């Protein structure tokens, strides 16, 4: 991890610490809690897509498996949420491994479609297994996290809880990408054949990063379940997978920081643009399209180039960033 990352981490850490003192309104805090929860998923997605170059259109499913596993275990089987969190991680990781092993042999559109189909199947299961999941109407009364007598039941407490996890995961992930394994992942993205003949076990690393991203999503799911305390399948549909994808893309796929910024930008923007109501779907699609055409490296990097270099980045950047993905 370079100096730049350490500095950014420090800035983020301080911001996370101070923010609740500045904005104490629980409504704003809960927006930030969701930013944190979604960031966990998008960090994983960024590792998977931006670094290893593998696409997933089913990330909402892992989020859902995490949420439902710990929700069901802690509600219907009265397990402690902490234990449920651990079990959910193993369940999600196991499922990701089973589905990833054959799926990651596929490339491009086929991988996208396989993950999409997987996501849909999980969605159907959540709807159909009424005895456990409550079916389409979902189930509630999921307990809060507890540490001794300290219950994480206020936005203020949960905010710090979620963001400390985000920071830990972030540090882990930054460690990872600046290591032997991180380079291996990026080499797969750069040229899978070359990575292979340089001694990288590409199949293994693809599955590992897929499982890791699923585990991140699972943790996010557990955090979601014990915050909202109510689950129903609608939250984990295909459109949420797309929303996650959009967050990663907006921030710039090949940067973990971008993933967090994209998540924050989109979550906060959509929350404050509530007045757009009926139009938000149009804006959503439009923004996504414009970014992919004009700023494929993400809003932040793209705008930076636009402002400081004065040249419209379209051709050069598209070429560069896309060639690297061939």
């Amino acid at each position, binding site marked *: 991890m370079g100096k730049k990352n350490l500095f950014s981490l420090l800035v983020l850490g301080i911001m996370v610490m101070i923010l609740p003192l500045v904005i104490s309104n629980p409504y704003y805090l809960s927006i930030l809690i969701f930013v944190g929860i979604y960031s966990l998923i998008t960090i994983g997605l960024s590792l998977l897509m931006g670094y290893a170059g593998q696409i997933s259109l089913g990330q909402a499913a892992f989020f859902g498996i995490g949420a439902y596993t710990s929700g069901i275990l802690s509600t219907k089987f009265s397990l402690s949420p902490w234990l449920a969190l651990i079990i959910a991680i193993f369940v999600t990781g196991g499922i990701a491994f089973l589905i990833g092993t054959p799926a990651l042999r596929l490339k491009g559109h086929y991988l996208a479609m396989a993950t999409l189909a997987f996501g849909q199947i999980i969605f159907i299961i959540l709807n159909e297994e009424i005895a456990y999941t409550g079916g389409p109407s979902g189930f509630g009364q999921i307990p809060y996290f507890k540490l001794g007598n300290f219950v994480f039941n206020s936005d203020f407490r949960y905010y710090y809880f979620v963001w400390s996890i985000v920071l830990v995961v972030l540090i882990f992930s930054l460690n*990872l990408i600046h*290591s032997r*394994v991180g380079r291996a992942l990026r080499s797969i993205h*750069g040229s899978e054949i070359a990575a292979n*003949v340089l001694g990288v076990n590409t199949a293994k690393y693809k599955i590992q990063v897929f499982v890791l991203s699923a585990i991140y999503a699972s943790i996010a799911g557990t955090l979601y379940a014990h915050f909202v305390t109510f689950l129903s399948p609608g939250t984990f549909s295909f459109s949420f997978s797309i929303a996650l994808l959009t967050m990663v893309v907006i921030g710039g796929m090949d940067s973990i920081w971008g993933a967090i910024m994209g998540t924050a930008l989109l979550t906060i923007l959509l929350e404050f643009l509530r007045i757009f109501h009926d139009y938000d779907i149009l804006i959503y699609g439009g923004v996504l399209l414009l970014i992919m055409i004009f700023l494929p490296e993400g809003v932040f990097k793209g705008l930076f180039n636009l402002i400081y270099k004065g040249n419209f980045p379209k051709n050069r950047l598209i070429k560069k960033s896309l060639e690297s993905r061939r």
Partner: protein
Amino acid sequence: MSPILEVVALRKEFGGVRALDGVSFKVNQHQIKAIIGPNGAGKTTLFNIISGLYFPTSGLIKFENREITGLKPHLITKRGICRTFQNIQIFKNMTVLENVMVGRHCRTRCEFLSTLMKLKRARYEEESILAFSQKILSFVGLKDRAFESVSNLTIQEQKLLEIARALATEPKLLLLDEPAAGLSIRETECIAELISRIRERGITILLVEHDMNVVMEISDEVIVLNSGRVLAEGAPREIQNNKEVIAVYLGEG
């Protein structure tokens, strides 16, 4: 001298088309051996099979007297064979140095968990990777460009980088696929000189090359492939005078 690589009756078919039709040869230790032949002779297919990217239809490959046929590419690299590509395959999403550092992958061990938590072991290893990679970069003459993006490199530099990256894996046998293609005469000389220097480090080299001057100048032995078969094998001078070879080359124009 015992052979480091032994290819026995190698055959490869693609949906009925024979790309390799019973190729056998040996590469001796510390040799520079060149494979020549017209387009479509099966040279790149041969490389792809040796490096494990393709499965042979039948036949046998032995490296240091152990069979490696059908091993996964990363395991073959670990045994000590590495290659470069005819159509350059550098990692465009990384810096020059990082490209070379990937090459250290097979000689290092830290996995997901230890790198996630950045254990002491991982930090030590990272330092050794860095040091080794920089050494390799200075060996091929790219030290000044270590922290640049690879998109700033010329074709020649990209080729050097590919070789550096392969050297980082500490190969015993290096497969070079047309290292001089697309280079000027001066640049070609530079590459030829580098190849000789690599041999001096005790690394055996098998190369595919179209530039006859390079082949004749640096190689100890030459194999001629044609239509998936070995047409001739011998010292450069013998090959130059081989009637069949001349016929093939002239006949094809």
